[in-house]
């Protein structure tokens, strides 16, 4: 006998906070997984840049990506995350309106950001096959676009669900978790932008 039984069998209370905490753990673990993926891409960029195999990290005379575009994209992403968090604080204080406003604006900024990301992808002044540098830049931009699309889905859900009056000051863990995720992808984009700001290989 290593256990005893207690309680009454037919209580089916599921405390939302309990579920919320569970999801928080789950989300953090998924962010670890996604973080490992993002880190691998950044590692790939820095490693190939450091190796500069056959001095071909950059092709001879190749144009490089405008750094400010990557910063614009990650900056807008950070702005949208902040707007969302502003809305999130609203619902935590009981204002559904503020959450709706915040989520809607954050979503719009995010969509604009995704559009810019697509424009950047199609307008790079080089092809994906030009050099190792080009390959990595394209792939990292693609990964960021994937993040953006996933988060647009979450953003739409937030707007819909707020309008359906699902959240309140006592029940809003989903909003908080979306906020966590949103913040994470902003950080990921900033880290990528930072890495890709260093273009020329230190190894000539």
């Amino acid at each position, binding site marked *: 006998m290593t256990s005893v039984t207690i309680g009454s069998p037919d209580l089916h*209370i599921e405390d939302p906070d309990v579920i919320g905490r569970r999801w928080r753990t789950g989300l953090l673990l998924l962010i670890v997984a996604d973080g490992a993926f993002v880190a*691998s891409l950044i590692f790939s960029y820095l490693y190939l840049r450091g190796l500069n195999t056959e001095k071909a990290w950059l092709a001879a005379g190749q144009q490089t990506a405008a750094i400010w575009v990557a910063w614009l994209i990650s900056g807008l992403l950070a702005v949208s995350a902040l707007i969302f968090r502003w809305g999130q604080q609203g619902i935590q204080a009981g204002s559904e309106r503020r959450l709706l406003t915040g989520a809607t604006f954050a979503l719009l900024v995010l969509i604009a950001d995704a559009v810019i990301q697509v424009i950047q992808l199609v307008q790079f002044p080089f092809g994906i*096959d030009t050099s190792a540098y080009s390959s990595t830049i394209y792939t990292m931009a693609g990964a960021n676009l994937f993040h953006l699309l996933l988060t647009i889905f979450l953003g739409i859900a937030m707007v819909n669900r707020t309008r359906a009056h699902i959240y309140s000051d006592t029940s809003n863990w989903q909003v908080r978790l979306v906020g966590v995720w949103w913040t994470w992808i902003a950080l990921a984009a900033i880290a990528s932008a930072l890495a890709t700001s260093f273009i020329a290989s230190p190894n000539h």
Partner: protein
Amino acid sequence: MSEAVVQHGAVARPVGGGAMRRLHLGTALAGGLILGFVAWYLSHHFLADTDDPEASNQVTSITMVGWAIGFMIGIGAFRGPWRWMLGKDQTHEDETFYAGKDQGIGRYFRFTTDHKVVGIQYLVVTMVLLAVGGTLAMMIRTDLITKDSRFLGPQTYNSVVGLHGLVMIIATIIMVTGPFGNFIVPIMIGARDMAFPRLNALSLWLIVAAIPVLLSAGFLGGIPTGWSGYAPLSDQAPPGMDAYLMTIIIFAISSAIAGANITTTILTMRARGMTWNRTPIFVWGTMASVGLAIPAFPMFMSAMVLLGVDRTAGAQFFVASAGGSPWLYANLFWIMGHPEVYVIVIPAVAALMEIAPVFARKPLFNYNAAVLAIVGIVGLSIMVWAHHMYASGWAPDLNGPFMLTTELISIPTGLLFLVVVGTIWRGRVWTTLPMLAVYAMLWNFIIGGITGIYLSDVPADYALHGSMFVTAHFHYTLMGAGLTGAIGALAYWFPKMTGRTLHKRAGFISFWLVQIGFNVTFIGMFAVGLAGQPRRVEHYASLFGVGNFVSTMGAYTIGIGMLVLLYAVVSSWRHGAIAISNPWGSKTLEWTVPNPIPLENFEVLPVVIADPYGYGEGDPALTGVGAGATPVTVGSGPPERTSVGSDGEST
């Protein structure tokens, strides 16, 4: 999205209504085939006006993505997220339907969320994969029976070896944490389901979707690269390689989800009173394994994404002349590849550590050391990957440091041996099939571990790398400890999972055939490896003839033994004697629930008052004091928690 979703946009219906409820494996296959075909047709139409390999890679990849998405739509995986996005959560009836209530055998072919169903599904998937991998192994050994049999030919041989390796690795990654981690662990910790039942079903069905993709590699020109898929050979490979990388991408997503789910379950849903030092060691092992997989597999996935971009879009990640590097691939691969071997072996050994006390009728020896060892292995295992690359030349100066970290792992691993041996020490050893697996592990894993130590020695690895010695080493660990542990776990939990008793005689016969055959096969392989036979060669110098012949005979013996096991499992599952609820006299919680196990496992949730290893210590519930037990008065707990029946739990 799917038409089913549209129909269900409406408010929830009573049980039994709606097209959504008619989705099952059949509609999934149909969905996969249809979308796969559409994707193939469109991409073929728009892209394949040239014969260039890039275009055919694109067509293959797009088709496979189409298949996978179609399959997941067809099984109903996207319904939950879609409705969540619309703000129309599932009702309680939906949830119980999804949990498979009152659906008989049909629930095994659906997107069912009950962890026990998912566990059984994982078990079947694992066995199918093992059977495929085993058949491929028999083909390998048949080809190698003489120095020049030409049974397969070099092209097919390379593919068969790679597929064997990959199928087996995938099978063994899921073989313990899939079936037993899903079925047993929640009950073992006193929970009514997993933390995220729907993610659980998702992880399983993703693997099912990946299997046809993987097997299709055999028909798409194969994979010429072995399981490691080294670039740039994989850059120039036929479209089979696209199947390979797509499989791994899907599998990586699946295991990240499964890992988050199982880890969260264990972290947050243990029964009241189940403190960390009362948590069964198998639960620790499971958590370590899936937790380690969480950061590991995404890196593998990234390697596959880069490879896929290389192959379909002409990127240059691994093409040296354009600034790419094969070393990038090798690093990404092994940063995953080494943790992965511990992902495989830890839960298997942990299962055996759970088994040993039961059949030695003694407490687990030095529980704290066992936990520390597992933690130590996990910590070290992410710092050793470059021992696979000593001879690659990527960073010769780092070989020494990597030798250090690698050899350090033998200390925590050795502790695991102390735990098992200490548990057996002066026990009443009841040599059932699960217990025999413990002994087999003690034999095999010592050999596998010590040969690993030879390989960790840099100069010795220069001599042995890429030879059959390495192959023999990892079969001793993967199969000798990993698969053996899984078979022990299956024999141990069989009565609980199927409600029936495993055929004893057939079990023993199979055990001895497999273990003897196994040792013959791979000792022969050690010999030819030392004598200088490279890995992955379809024919070889006559010097290696005897050793290979011996190996092949051993392999056939394993094959026969595995068939006997398969017979034992299948026949016992169908007609075996009905098992009582606790046939082994174990003390973990899963043996306290009745057979067959009710949908929510526990009528009333248990409160744990001692760890489950109190053999020979009297009964803490009677005396009031077990080792470290805090007696709890019956009836004084907080309100029940349950895990089914919420509508907040979505996505």
